[in-house]
């Protein structure tokens, strides 16, 4: 699989006064635990956000983030610097979350998700949900739909449409081209729209209100 060699530096890193990432990575590769500690400090929050978006629910995010850092720590010597450290770390996160998805797959959980979606949909027209509540219910529904979607579409969609990463950054994390990413994200959008229509959360295209 061809690796994309873009090296986008996330905006937040530039704002961080201590963000000498390359130097820290170099020291960490030499076994400097202090450098690793600083990398942990620097990347914890963006990684937490990334994993939270991918995982879709919050209860296991801390454990998943811990696993990402642990795996990064033992495989830092494999980091070849062709992508940024951030992209590399976030790529590990994609793999860790992918494993998590696979461990979560079961008929019963899919059934529960569907039941939850139906319950919420039925409630929405009759109950004046406040905006925040509605947003959370919508999040549950979309993640439930994503749970039944092929991984490659799900990943592309989450990174691009939900987390809002730039195409080059999202593609680099997934190890695919930007064009391929766009195709996957668009297909995922189409499937999600179809499911949302089926469940009554969206009117068919062209029938939307103002």
């Amino acid at each position: 699989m061809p690796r994309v060699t873009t090296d986008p530096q996330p905006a937040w890193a530039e704002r961080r006064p201590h963000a000498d990432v390359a130097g820290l990575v170099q020291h960490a590769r030499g076994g400097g635990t202090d450098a690793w500690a600083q990398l942990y400090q620097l990347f914890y929050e963006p990684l937490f956000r990334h994993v939270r978006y991918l995982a879709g629910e919050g209860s296991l995010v801390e454990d998943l983030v811990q696993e990402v850092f642990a795996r990064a720590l033992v495989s830092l010597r494999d980091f070849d610097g062709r992508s940024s450290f951030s992209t590399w770390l976030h790529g590990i996160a994609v793999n860790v979350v992918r494993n998590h998805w696979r461990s979560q797959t079961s008929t019963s959980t899919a059934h529960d998700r569907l039941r939850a979606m139906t319950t919420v949909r039925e409630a929405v027209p009759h109950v004046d949900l406040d905006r925040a509540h509605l947003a959370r219910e919508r999040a549950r529904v979309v993640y439930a739909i994503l749970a039944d979607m092929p991984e490659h579409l799900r990943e592309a969609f989450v990174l691009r449409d939900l987390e809002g990463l730039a195409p080059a950054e999202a593609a680099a994390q997934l190890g695919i081209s930007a064009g391929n990413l766009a195709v996957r994200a668009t297909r995922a959008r189409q499937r999600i729209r179809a499911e949302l229509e089926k469940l009554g959360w969206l009117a068919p295209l062209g029938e939307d209100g103002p």
Partner: protein
Amino acid sequence: MNQLDTPQHDPALDALLGDVAWAVDDDIVRTQAAWDFAAVVARAHALDPEQVPGDVVREVEAAAPIVSLAQQRRARRVTRDDPQFDRILADVRASIEHDAAVGRSAAATPVKPIVPATGRRVMWAVLALAAMLVIAFGLVQGVQYVQLQRDAPADAALHLGEPAESESPAATVQDDPPRARSPAPMPVPEAEPPLLEVDPSATTATAAPRRDRDKTKRGAAPSAPAPSLSDRLAELDAAAAAALRARDLPKAQAAFEEIVKLGGSSRLADLAYGELFHIAHRQSDAAGELALWKRYLQRFPEGRFADDARAGLCRRASGAEKDACWREYLVDFPRGSYVRQAEQHLGGGTP
């Protein structure tokens, strides 16, 4: 790429996905993540003992805990093609920021170590707003004063004895007796500077009966001391940030120390301690870290870094003192970030 692979203009879907992203971001902001670098290293050791030997685990275990500093939380990008929905989201975000500001001001509640930069921005915004209100109030009173010279209404009593409304909530905390703590790692008492986040005298001055004011001081009324302290703290904070960017750690350290000195029990001083921890950590100043934790806990026994400082002291303790320290930690921070480590230690299960 065929027609089906071209993104379709779909405002309704975008609006719904904007909701989803907002909900996730909101959850992230509300989540008090437990940072545990020692657990990461222990897990890495389990994955590959050759890459991460046991002595590294023990080294990290004994080292300072890692705390979150003023991390920028990126604002959610605007939802595409739906300005109406964007306005709703903006309202929601503003409401959340307001709630968060109120929550942060309730310093009596133990706060986790995440210190988003938005918090600092909100704090400065509150300080700036307070200063603006003082000035605006002064201007209004100036106008009223002219009228008073004409009408001389006997309304001064309305203003007599009014408490300073802008007194820092931290003042309430200071009045509360501190919780019982482990005697072993507790710090040497530190002289507590007065609470200065918003100078009550400034508010009192503007609320004082207008007719009692010394006419010779009228010209000086707009330059109340509260804005000058705010300005000084802002200046120090900017200087510290610039020094950090320039990697001039001693200069940054001096500026943060000054903020701590002037800031009393304010949130700004609380945050400055976090920066000082980080600087000491970067300078590998183990003794300095220890002293800082003690100073910090003396002033902020329930501050936003208290969890980390307590855990740091416990990690540095030894023998029976260490056991007692972790036991106390579990009592004081039953949902703390280092509960797992405390339990591991007390259960004899250090990794």
